[in-house]
Every structure is written in C-alpha cells, then in structure tokens.
C-alpha cells in the first residue's frame, strides 16, 4: 500500500480567511495561478512558527490576491516535498517556476509507473 503520489485535492482561493483556517501543523503545499498551473511547491517545516498556516499567510503577503493553494498535513514534510518536486519535474519536464529560481541542492529523478 503506497501513499498517493500526486497532490490532487481541489484548489482553494488563497485568501486571508482561508489561510487563517489552516492548521498550524507540518506539511507541504502547492500554490497555483488562477488557471491551476502550479507556481510553487513548498514545505511547512519545523521552523515555520505556525506550520502551514504561517507559510500560506507569508505566501499571501508575498503574492497578493488571485492565487490558489492546496495543502497536505504530513510529518514527513521534507521527503514528501522532495517527492512532489520530482513528480512535477517528471510530469512537466521542469520544476515549478518559483522553485526553479532557487532549486534544492540535489534533486533525484523519478519515473512513476
């Protein structure tokens, strides 16, 4: 039994109200534009003061209105973040544009069945 590889939850609008409702837990998230194109895959690690909530609040402050997001609470936030980046790279041939600006030091290759 393996975990779901891709994050395919419905998108939510990135607003102050939605971000406020998020748990303060560790996990990963995706930010997309209004059409659903993934712009960024992020992690809410243990240095995030309020986990996913504060990460998404920072994203909102930085990006302003008009974006969408989805999150996954996950204690294995770090390896799950690497996984989502690799899967995105496999599916789209490149990292999401905002990850490509500052990619992780080493990223592997996946070829999901």
């Amino acid at each position, binding site marked *: 039994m393996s975990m779901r590889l891709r994050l395919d939850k419905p998108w939510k609008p990135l607003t102050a109200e939605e971000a406020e409702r998020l748990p303060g837990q560790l996990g990963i998230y995706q930010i997309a534009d209004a059409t659903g194109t993934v712009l960024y895959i992020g992690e809410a690690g*243990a240095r995030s003061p309020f986990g996913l909530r504060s990460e998404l609040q920072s994203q909102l402050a930085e990006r302003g209105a008009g974006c969408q997001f989805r999150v996954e609470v996950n204690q*294995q*936030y*770090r*390896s799950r973040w*690497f996984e989502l980046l690799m899967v995105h790279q496999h599916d789209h041939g490149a990292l999401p544009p905002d990850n490509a600006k500052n990619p*992780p030091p080493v*990223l*592997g290759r996946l070829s999901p*069945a």
Partner: protein
Amino acid sequence: MDFEPSEEQQMLIDQVRRFVREEIIPLEAKLDPDASELEPADHKRLVEKTKAMGLFGIDIPKEYGGPDIDIVTRVLLAIEMAQHRAGLYVPCYGTFGGAGLAQIFEANDDQKERYLYPTLRGEKKTFFGLTEPSGGSDPARAIQTKAERKDNGWVLNGAKIFISNADRAQYGIVFARTDASKGRAGITCFIIDTDTPGFHVRRVVHTLRSSHYATELEFKDCWVSDHQVLGEVNKGFAVANDRLTRQRIPYAAGCIGVAIAAHEMAIEWAKMRSTFGEKLANRQAVQWMLVDNEIDIRTAKHFTLEAAEKARRGLPFRVEAGIAKLTASEGGGRVVDRSMQIHGGMGMTKDLPLERWYREMRIRRVGEGPSEVQRMVIAREILGSNLR
C-alpha cells in the same frame, strides 16, 4: 584488549570533536530540524577543511588515495562524527567524504576506470540494490529479481525496495538471481547504470526518517552486457554478505555517537532542571536512568571496538560485528528514550535533536540486518554450524 585511545588517536578524536562543535553544529542550528544537506557553498568550504585535516575520504583504502587510518581509529572518529542532529545517518553532512560502496574496490580494471575512480573523484554517486519487496533479511532466498542470458549479456526483470539514493545515483550495485535452482549460489552482482533502458525509480518510500527517503526500483527488460557483472557469475551472495558484515561496525559506531550526545544532554539537563524544589540530578529515578545510559554506551562501545580490533587484525569478526550492531542499536535506542524522558516535554519537541534521534534510531534495529538476524548469527556460532 586495551581500548584506551593512543595519543595519536586522541589527537584525531579531539580534532573531529572540535570540527563537529565549531563547524557543524552552528550551521545545523540554522537548518530545518529534519534537513540532511548543507548549502552547497558550506559543504564545499567544509570539505576543504577536512582535506586540510588529512581526514577526507577516511574509508578509502590507502592504495586508492585514502588517508590510511585503521578501522579502530575510524570507529573512534565515526563516534565523534555522529554527535549532532543529523549525525546518525549523515555524519558531518558527508564532509569527510565516503568510499562509495566497498564492493567496487573488488571490480576489474575496466570497471574501476568506469566506476571506482569517478566515484572517488566525486563525479559519480552510487546505490546498493539488495532488498526486495519479498524481503531483505534473508537475501539468499528473498531475491526474486531475475537476470537471464540474452545477446552476450543479461536481461534483468524484478523490483527492489528501500533503496537509498537510487534516484540521485549514476550507477548502482544490484543483486539478481541467475540460477533459480541454486539458492545463495545462484545470485550474481551487477553494476547498473541508472540511464540503462528498463531501469526505473518508481516511487519514494517515506519512512520515520522524514529527512531522507528510500526508493522503489523496477527492472523491466533491463539489458546489460557481461562487462557489468561484478565479480563472478553466481557468486554475488558472498559480495553482499561481506558488505553487510563490514557495514555493521561503522553502523554501530554511529549509534554510539548519538547515544553519547543524548546522554550528555540528559546529564546537563538533570543538573540544571529542578522539580519540587530539587534538581533532577538529585533524584534516584533520574540517577538510575543516567546510570543505565552509561552502561548501555560503555557496553556498545566495548563490543564495537572489539569487532573493529578483530577486523584490523584480519581475524574473523562476523559474530563480533553482530554483537556490536545489536548492542549499539538496541542500547542506543534505550539511551535516547531515557534522555527524552529526563527532558520531559522539551524532549518531545523539534527544538531539540532528541525526537529526530528517537525516530532514526528505531530504524537502526532493522537496518543492516535486524536484531533477530544478529541473534541468529550469534546463536549459530555458539551452538555450532549444524544449525545452518
């Protein structure tokens, strides 16, 4: 056997200890608590330092440019290198270099040119592909990946699981069954380039080690030439077994290093923290936990150095390596657990490294041969070979 470090060993120990405390721990404090990698610029700078210390590539044999440090000293240094948050699995974030996989030193000249030397130069990374979905503790029977003769080479079909670094490696050492009728005498070791058609890294396997993942591999009509056989056909099990035995000694050393670090934290906390008007250190319940920590650490260190000393002398050390791995992984787990208990609520948080050590140390009782297999190996020895 006298395990008191010599003057020269103590000098090296002090040098590595300073490196961990002055270089690694301050950088680590800025990283995510589950991180396993430094920023590339920091990594490069620290590699230059370990090279200047004459300790880079510490596990590389002298004839291949290693610093010629015996295994007992390497164990003493490995204990030091593990004493930081990421130290159990990524001692000093790899800044002391690695030898790659020991088996590659057994390769023929052509294979050494293509794999060993590029690995030693840091140009190629590798993985070790042994465990399969059918099992890992009993590779002689569990290996179901098949390699069949075709067109002056071999076609591999099958799967591997819990394989570290396969997604980042340029090649790996993969064990496959080449004769279904011969049990352990029907396994061959192959060197597989990761860009070979038919080689796939299918998924990430998430574990307690949130910092690092394993992968699942698939071989689908993956053809390799005869030049990719490492050693002899049908003699791959000895290659795997040798590696598993040797690996148990440094594996034990890492557990001891983390146990020492946890224990030192617990001692400091016990001297500082008061409850009901009394320092924790004055309470018998806490004292006994600290005493048990001390005993677990000393026991594991003794057996690990004993195994290393036998290996250094060229004597059989299979049983000693098993005892070392067993006492260090089980004792280390107990030490971290008690140290968390002494720290109370703080011990459960990601503010301290204890929770990461707790999760990662749990894996050590399974990785590189579970405790039960170590006990089986030791039982065979003390009860005689008729149990095999």
